């Protein structure tokens, strides 16, 4: 038996699943001031009569980090930035607390300017004066050569032994310095509070004699043992949409292309599952306006939903983006799409007479019958959603590519299914699907798809390996690993084998070794370095990953 609990913005949903079925489910209102209490309440409701030894795994998806950041409750972080030549670091808007340091590493990982120790000591004293206990150290190309970041960390540690220090290269081995800096700051800012939360979870589970391992859901739809996630808590941000998408993935046949439509009160969230794989955001998650290296599903939030306000201006309709309270048929004050659906008989939610009154008001301004007005409203909502879906597919097709074959393959995918989750989904999704020429699907367990997603998601893992045969070394930045190569020769096949071996080792260290067999090489590039008309070495970059997927224990699909 698997347990999934999704602490969402308004409700906390929990399920107990077994053999592809939901055995128990619970909904509890979310208490933002005490996430732990609602989480445990939901847990207790689904486990009260279950033999505890049969629970194999508990997965949590929480808004903890999201809330912490939104409410400004993260810890202050002192940033030590080594920007080297290039962009003026001010253009990155990384906050007031940045100490800009001399020193530079280039794209090959070569030192092009040494550190300035007296300047670093001065910066450390500045941080000390301001009382920082968390320090992020990030250098441009620090992932290609960790020496500067390590040296500074050592100096900070000597001067401020109690400080918590986060290093950019450990956060991501990928290119993009400002994203790496933003992610490192977030890691430093959330780690301590996250650890407190995790400790409370461990204690509460122990108290309940639940011995099953506890996992956390990440933004990329993967799970990680909770204790291992303490190193990178920001990866758990936006796990709510990830939970829903993983739920849909679990409830739909494999390898199909689906649009996930989550229609709420004021917004509709759209996500794509392309040939069975959820689409990741090409630029990483945006947190507080800053792009990060956090891998997250591409979710588009459209400002339209069941409670969107309907206005008529010069005989034409506008829908949303604001909300006028609930629908008139639900005791609200103004006309909404929910009223229109009620009038057309597309839903049976709320008071029919009130809905008719809502549409009569709209109809008077438009000069038509209430039914016509309702049809126009629904048409408007469907139009908006359909055009945004079209744009998502276009954006995906227009993602830049840097190789001839990538441009030439000209892949075009069309939605096979439109899968609805959320309140207004059953009435609107069939209309959206019809317009797209796709099949409308409202899964049986749609209301708890998010909790199911958490329950059945398997671990994910990404490893970036870079090899420079001319310099005779390889690096796995996130592991802090730089080592000499045996010999100078290496081809792509050998490099990929090496990446597979390294990801298995990392998976074992993270306690998810049993999934390492699922690892795939998702990116690999090899360049001959030619100097003076002869080949002097190779530059190889490999990404190996265990992609988002569903546990075999779910037993479906």
């Amino acid at each position, binding site marked *: 038996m698997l347990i999934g609990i999704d602490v969402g913005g308004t409700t906390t949903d929990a399920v107990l699943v077994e053999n592809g079925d939901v055995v128990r489910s619970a909904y509890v209102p979310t208490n933002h001031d005490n996430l732990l209490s609602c989480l445990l309440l939901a847990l207790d409701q689904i486990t009260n009569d279950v033999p505890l030894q049969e629970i194999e795994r508990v997965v949590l998806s929480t808004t903890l980090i999201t809330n912490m950041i939104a409410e400004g409750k993260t810890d202050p972080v002192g940033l030590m930035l080594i920007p080297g030549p290039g962009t003026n670091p001010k253009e990155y808007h990384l906050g007031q607390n940045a100490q800009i340091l001399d020193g530079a590493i280039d794209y090959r990982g070569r030192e092009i300017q040494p550190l300035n120790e007296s300047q670093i000591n001065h910066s450390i004293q500045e941080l000390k004066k301001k009382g920082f206990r968390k320090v992020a150290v990030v250098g*441009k190309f620090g992932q290609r050569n960790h020496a500067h970041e390590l040296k500074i960390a050592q100096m900070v540690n000597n001067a401020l032994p109690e400080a918590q220090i986060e290093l950019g290269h450990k956060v991501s081995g990928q290119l993009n310095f400002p*994203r790496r800096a933003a992610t490192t700051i977030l890691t430093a800012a959330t780690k301590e509070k996250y650890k407190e939360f995790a400790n409370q979870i461990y204690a509460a589970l122990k108290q309940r004699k639940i011995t099953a391992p506890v996992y956390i859901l990440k933004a990329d739809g993967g799970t990680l043992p909770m204790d291992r996630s303490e190193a990178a808590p920001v990866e758990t941000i936006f796990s709510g949409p990830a939970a829903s998408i993983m739920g849909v993935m679990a409830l739909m046949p494999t390898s199909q292309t689906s649009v996930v439509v989550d229609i709420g009160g004021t917004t509709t969230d759209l996500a794509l599952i392309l040939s069975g794989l959820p689409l990741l955001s090409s630029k990483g998650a945006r947190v507080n306006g800053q792009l990060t290296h956090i891998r997250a599903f591409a979710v588009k939030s459209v400002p339209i939903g069941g409670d969107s306000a309907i206005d008529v201006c010069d005989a034409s309709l506008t829908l949303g983006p604001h909300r006028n309270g609930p629908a008139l048929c639900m005791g609200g004050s103004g006309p909404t799409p929910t009223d229109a659906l009620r009038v057309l008989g597309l839903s049976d939610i709320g008071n029919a007479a009130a809905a008719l009154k809502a549409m009569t008001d709209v109809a008077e301004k438009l000069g038509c019958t209430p039914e016509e007005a309702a049809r126009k409203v629904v048409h408007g909502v469907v139009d908006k959603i359909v055009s945004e879906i079209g744009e998502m597919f276009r954006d995906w097709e*227009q993602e*830049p590519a840097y190789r001839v074959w990538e441009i030439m393959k000209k892949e075009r995918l069309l939605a096979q299914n439109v899968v609805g989750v959320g309140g207004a989904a059953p009435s609107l999704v069939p209309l959206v699907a019809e317009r797209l020429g796709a099949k409308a699907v409202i899964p049986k367990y749609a209301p708890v798809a998010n909790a199911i997603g958490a329950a059945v998601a398997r671990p994910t893992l990404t490893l970036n390996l870079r090899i420079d045969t001319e310099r005779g070394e390889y690096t796995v930045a996130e592991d802090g690993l730089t080592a000499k190569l045996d010999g100078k020769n290496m081809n792509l096949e050998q490099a990929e084998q090496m990446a597979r071996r390294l990801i298995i080792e990392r998976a074992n260290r993270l306690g998810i070794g049993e999934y390492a067999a699922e690892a795939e090489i998702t990116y690999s590039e090899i360049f001959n370095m030619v100097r003076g008309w002869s080949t002097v070495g190779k530059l190889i970059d490999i990404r190996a990953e265990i992609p988002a997927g569903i546990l075999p224990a779910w037993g479906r699909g």
Partner: protein
Amino acid sequence: MNMVSCAGKTGLVFFPAFDWAISPTHPEREERLLYTRDQIFEEGLMDLPEIVEYKPRLATSKDIARVHFCVPNVESLVTEAHLIAAGSTLTLSDALENGDIRNGFALVRPPGHHSMMVAHGNRGFCNVNNMAIMAEYLRSKYGHKKIAIVDTDVHHGDGTQDIFWHDPDVLYISFHQDGRTLYPGSGFPAEMGGPKALGKTLNIPLPPGTTDEGIHYVLDNFILPVLKDFQPELVLNSAGQDNHYTDPLANMRFSAQGYALLNEKLAPDICVLEGGYAIESALPYTNTGIIQAMAGLDYSHVKEPDYVPGKFLQSMEIKREIEATVKQLESIWASRDEMVQDALASTGQFYRRRKRIFYDTDMINETQEETVRMCDKCQGYMTIATTAQRGYGILNSAFCISLPRNACSSCREDVKEEFEDHKEDRKFNYIYLQDKQKDTYHSYDTRTRNQKDF
């Protein structure tokens, strides 16, 4: 965050063609923009609100035929990489014309500025001329007339010069290392354009060793004032980066700061990358600086690892030489209208010239005979009889006819006749008609008697 309105963005197409090379060890190989990729991605330039990245589309055969007579046909002369590089410039042109961007940079390879109007193969690493394809697209699709192309590559852009040689509405200005010391060996002040376009081709040869100071002297004292006189609708930059002091194929002393400042002053509507082969020591820094300058960002932090201000001092000798060249060009520019009048008075009904062209990459020798009708109602149609030889064998021969966009009815009639007459002329393998007025392009194979129109 400082949000910039959409109309203020700089469009960027980055197409490094990581899977395309002329040959494995050729300067134009996969690795060329690798370190540039690393630098601009690590800088996070694409994430900045001032910059928007576009995926390139493919140029069509028609886009290419609008500029080139490809012998035997477009398909056999270009690879997909060429279509994408050329297409990148069209993607940016559309974004510019739609008002989505303020300016754009096609940071793409393979380059194009050595490709001439007739193209039998690759010369100077170029198969088709990305810059010219873009300029002609902008004119035919968006109705632009007056365009200035400033070629800032260290090599003379002899291809672009050839394509617009007779066109008085395209101002082609190139500064480059003196042709006596560098490929392709041309680009002297006396190369000024065809009889009706004299002074609309301006060549500024610079002595080897010219520094930031020298190039900015030319820019400030000649190029910018000339652009002000010419009043072009668009300024396009053939942005080669091989004037850099570390470039292995040339001998100039230009820096990343120099390049950034140049683009800030020139403020081109669209830049297209041409050459630049110091792939580690220059390109990551020059490209970063150019992108920042175009996007209005602070580029003062861009610096090559070994660069210090004042690294290169220009000798008095070089200074005097550059000043003398600028003086010579100023007088050419000042007397341009007069020169055209004189030329028209002394040229008969037709202007003729013979050219020999060597394709260094593909080892082809081409002979051309060019004829332009000195029409008093329009620019006059042009024909080119071309024969290409590789080794001891004849590769191809073709008769090419070009009808200008502003053609008069008499030129149009003559061109029709020329095309039909030459279909029976077995001296040539192929007959081409480039009808810019109708934007239609025709090719005829004299052996198979097949005609293709597009």
